[in-house]
């Protein structure tokens, strides 16, 4: 026979104002199996918990029901207290008589009856509770970081500095990401390369970091603490171990006019190339699509001039499996290419701005390359069309961002600041030039950010016009910008030499495909979703996977670095223990009844269901049944609901418990 203890909480007056708690305690005290019932002002307080623990021992209670707030609030608190008193924590249940009763009702009589019924249900339920032992899973203390931009680099360095091995995977031939493309950074105008490249070198030299560049994630299996990640290392055509990075191959390559993606296609590179001089690793890669040897079979100059004989045309893609315990996703962003309107995409382009048609209408990142000392113009602001210095330049903000009718309703967050920066760089480099900015709002929250924006206007002569541009067109060698100044209420027409569009930040192309491989969720724009917007901002809902940087949403560099360090801290917390403890609310298969249809496996969003062979003593296969890996199971209960013969039960939420509750009503 159960000896159940029921504790009714007043929650100050939150519950007792509408529920006659003494009457509830008295009425449930008469239920079969209830050995003790009482009410108390604050059950969660220290004296409340002491009362609970003392009563468990004095009354030799077998089960506990605490009728108070939502279990999401204090279930852990009371289960801990119950455990301290020597009972299994899963023999304690909470009856929610606050959110589900006192807060939503006014009539004391009715609320009291309802509270009594809620507690009565939980009394019947707790009778069916089983002792559940905590689940432990071993932790592989190695981490995978996906993406070698500033977010990935920071997270990798932090984790590696804590003494744990890191596998860093980057899709491009070099790490560095978008930050390596930038000229100077707001709000201090320090050179991006100068602060970035030392970190890149640190990554390359760190004994705990294993770097895979020109590589992609092929497959992710396993679960928190125990992932198996298959990495596809694309054929570089250059042996990384023997290449010395001398660069002779690049100087001799006859294909010299290939647009360089790193320079936003305004600079040129060779077919065997490193994307930029500070690339890490300093090992070239052959772009097989543009290489004469791969296209026609003739050439092979790079191989002939290579001293150490590192050029290998026969190299093939290879697959490598890395065991890791945690994953940091830092895949960053991509810029909205406004002239493209992919079929079926909800995002509409901005054909009216002539991007892609008028050579001197460029995006912000292209301006960064023009302004960069290592860029194709050596840091001079020159027009792509004729190489002349633009004397009048127009910047247009919010291209794509905050335009619901065009498909993107969010703010890209960094454009206000980088446009202000662009006007300053322009002012420093083009003397006598004039910068105009069309903007909807200036959003400058952040340390020293508003001061920076004010400086662009007050000290660096940028003219800010509040209003949007309706049309752009080429007139001779000028671009006529037609817009409105809504502050004054007039139409504006500027004959500009160059136009820079602050295009929206979007997730990387294929971000959704990677998310599907990882089993993490993403929003309608393909930005990755965090587990809780406020309280778990760097964790994914999938255990063991963390987010850093702009793959989660638009972010500037300081925010990205902070989040990367936060994600690293989460990884270190996970790695601080050898065994990972998990709540034992997991599904269990009744193998005797399982017929092996694997409907449960089909619906499991976490890949927790496996196939298990049942054999007799002679080793003959009797049948194949489902098996739920408790390390992976998230306890969602979908398999339980799907099983046609009800042979999957979720511990802590069994059909028996739920039906007992219903029958108590």
């Amino acid at each position, binding site marked *: 026979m159960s000896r159940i203890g029921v504790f009714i909480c007043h929650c100050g007056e939150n519950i007792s104002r509408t529920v006659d708690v003494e009457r509830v305690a008295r009425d449930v005290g008469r239920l079969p199996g209830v050995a003790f019932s009482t009410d108390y002002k604050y059950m969660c307080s220290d004296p409340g918990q002491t009362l609970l623990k003392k009563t468990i021992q004095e009354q030799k209670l077998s089960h506990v029901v605490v009728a108070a707030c939502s279990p999401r609030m204090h279930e852990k608190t009371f289960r801990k207290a119950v455990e301290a008193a020597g009972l299994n924590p899963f023999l304690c249940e909470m009856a929610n008589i606050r959110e589900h009763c006192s807060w939503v009702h006014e009539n004391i009589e009715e609320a009291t009856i309802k509270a009594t019924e809620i507690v009565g249900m939980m009394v019947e339920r707790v009778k069916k509770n089983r002792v559940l032992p905590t689940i432990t899973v071993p932790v592989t203390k190695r981490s995978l970081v996906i993406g070698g931009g500033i977010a990935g680099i920071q997270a990798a360095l932090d984790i590696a500095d804590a003494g744990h091995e890191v596998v860093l995977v980057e899709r491009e031939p070099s790490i560095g990401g978008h930050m390596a493309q930038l000229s100077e950074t707001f709000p201090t105008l320090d050179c991006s390369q100068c602060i970035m490249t030392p970190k890149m070198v640190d990554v390359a030299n760190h004994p705990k970091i294993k770097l895979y560049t020109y590589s992609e994630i092929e497959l992710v299996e396993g679960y928190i603490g125990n992932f198996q990640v298959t990495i596809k290392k694309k054929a570089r055509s250059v042996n990384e171990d023997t290449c010395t990075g001398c660069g002779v191959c690049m100087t001799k390559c006859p294909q010299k006019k290939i647009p360089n993606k790193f320079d936003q296609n305004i600079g040129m590179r060779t077919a065997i190339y490193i994307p930029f001089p500070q690339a890490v690793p300093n090992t070239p890669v052959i772009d097989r699509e543009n290489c004469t040897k791969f296209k026609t079979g003739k050439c092979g100059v790079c191989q002939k001039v290579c001293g150490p004989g590192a050029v290998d045309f026969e190299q093939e893609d290879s697959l490598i499996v890395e065991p890791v315990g945690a994953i940091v996703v830092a895949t960053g962003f991509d810029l909205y290419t406004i002239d493209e309107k992919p079929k079926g995409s909800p995002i509409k382009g901005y054909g009216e701005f002539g991007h892609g048609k008028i050579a001197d209408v460029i995006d912000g990142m292209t301006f960064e390359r023009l302004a960069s000392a290592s860029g194709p113009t050596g840091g001079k602001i020159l027009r792509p069309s004729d190489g002349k210095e633009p004397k009048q330049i127009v910047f247009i903000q919010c291209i794509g961002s905050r335009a619901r009718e065009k498909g993107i309703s969010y703010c890209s967050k960094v454009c206000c600041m980088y446009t202000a920066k662009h006007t300053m760089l322009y002012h420093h480099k083009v003397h006598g030039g004039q910068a105009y900015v069309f903007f909807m709002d200036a959003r400058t929250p952040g340390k020293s950010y508003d001061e920076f924006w004010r400086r662009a206007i007050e000290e660096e002569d940028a003219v800010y016009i509040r209003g949007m541009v309706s049309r752009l067109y080429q007139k001779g060698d000028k671009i006529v910008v037609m817009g409105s100044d809504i502050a004054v209420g007039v139409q504006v027409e500027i004959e500009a030499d160059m136009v820079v569009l602050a295009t929206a930040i979007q997730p990387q192309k294929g971000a959704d495909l990677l998310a599907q491989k990882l089993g993490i969720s993403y929003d309608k724009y393909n930005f990755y979703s965090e587990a809780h917007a406020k309280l778990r901002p760097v964790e994914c809902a999938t255990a063991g996977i963390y987010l850093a940087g702009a793959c989660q949403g638009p972010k500037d560099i300081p925010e990205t670095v902070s989040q990367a360090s936060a994600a690293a801290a989460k990884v270190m917390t996970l790695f601080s223990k050898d065994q990972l403890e998990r709540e034992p609310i997991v599904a269990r298969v009744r193998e*005797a*009844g*399982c*017929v*092996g*249809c*694997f*409907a449960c496996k*089909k*619906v499991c969003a976490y890949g927790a269901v496996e196939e298990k062979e049942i054999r007799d003593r002679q080793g003959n296969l009797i049948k*194949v049944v489902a098996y739920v890996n408790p390390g992976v199971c998230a306890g969602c209960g979908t398999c339980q609901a*799907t099983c*046609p*013969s*009800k*042979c999957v039960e979720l511990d802590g939420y069994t*059909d*028996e418990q739920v*039906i*007992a509750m219903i029958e108590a009503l």
Partner: protein
Amino acid sequence: MTSTLIETSIYAAISESIQAEAKRILSDGQVSTIVGYAAARRKGSAQPIVITDASDAQKLIFTPACVNNLAVYLTKAKKDIPKKGKIGIVVKGCDMKALTGLMGESQLKREELYLIGVPCAGVLASTFAPSQELTDESLAPKCTECDAHLPTGCDFVPTETPLTPELEKKYAVEIARLEALTPAERWAYWKEQFAKCIKCYACRQVCPFCFCEQCLCDRNKPQMVETTPRPAGNTAWHIVRAMHLAGRCAGCAECERVCPMDIPLNLLNRKMAKELKELYDHEAGFEVTEKGPLTMFNEKDDQSFIK
């Protein structure tokens, strides 16, 4: 009104082909066992037979009385069939759909089966004597809607081609009639039908998709469905059955054939199939699919019911 005769003269040639093929594959050891049809006691009637010896191959027949879906013998009854080597099975197009479904649900493996397909113009309705000739009236209602007269994906199919006249689709007509009713009238109709149920579970036993070792309706701790044949429990059972078969049942109509109380069970199954066709463009039984429409989520799925 005179009834249209359904041409079944090819069935004799088909029977001969089946016998020859069965003899061949049993003799050369390709299969250990064959499940097929043989003549039964009453004139013109047929019954399932399991043979393991090549000399029994001549017992195999195909006639309009070969109504059973033999797929069921490979599931629950498979424990009676010695599981050594491949098993041969005689299948009509409708039975083939059940096998396809069972393969998708990990119950059967294609490589463990030898499929002898039957070109079929139709079989007799259970309400007619087995010796009755096949006409549009005596034809089983499911055969009026048949879209698989020639089974696909078999190892062997006799070369004969059945002549299949266009007939009025009996279930479609009945579904249209019920859909035209008000919800209250429809509910009254089904309540009356379910009230007849005596909970004999013949529909469950004959269904190839009811392959659970223990049906949840037989569970008593906790009891999911009331076991006595009272209206509430009856309705619960038939709703469970319809929901469990949605997206899986391909309409062999065996449930309806064996129901001693003449409950139009396949009508319910066809209505569910129609819903799934409209909602998810899914038709059961044509290909082995890893996930059915009700065990997967697609962003394009209709979500208008979420208010």
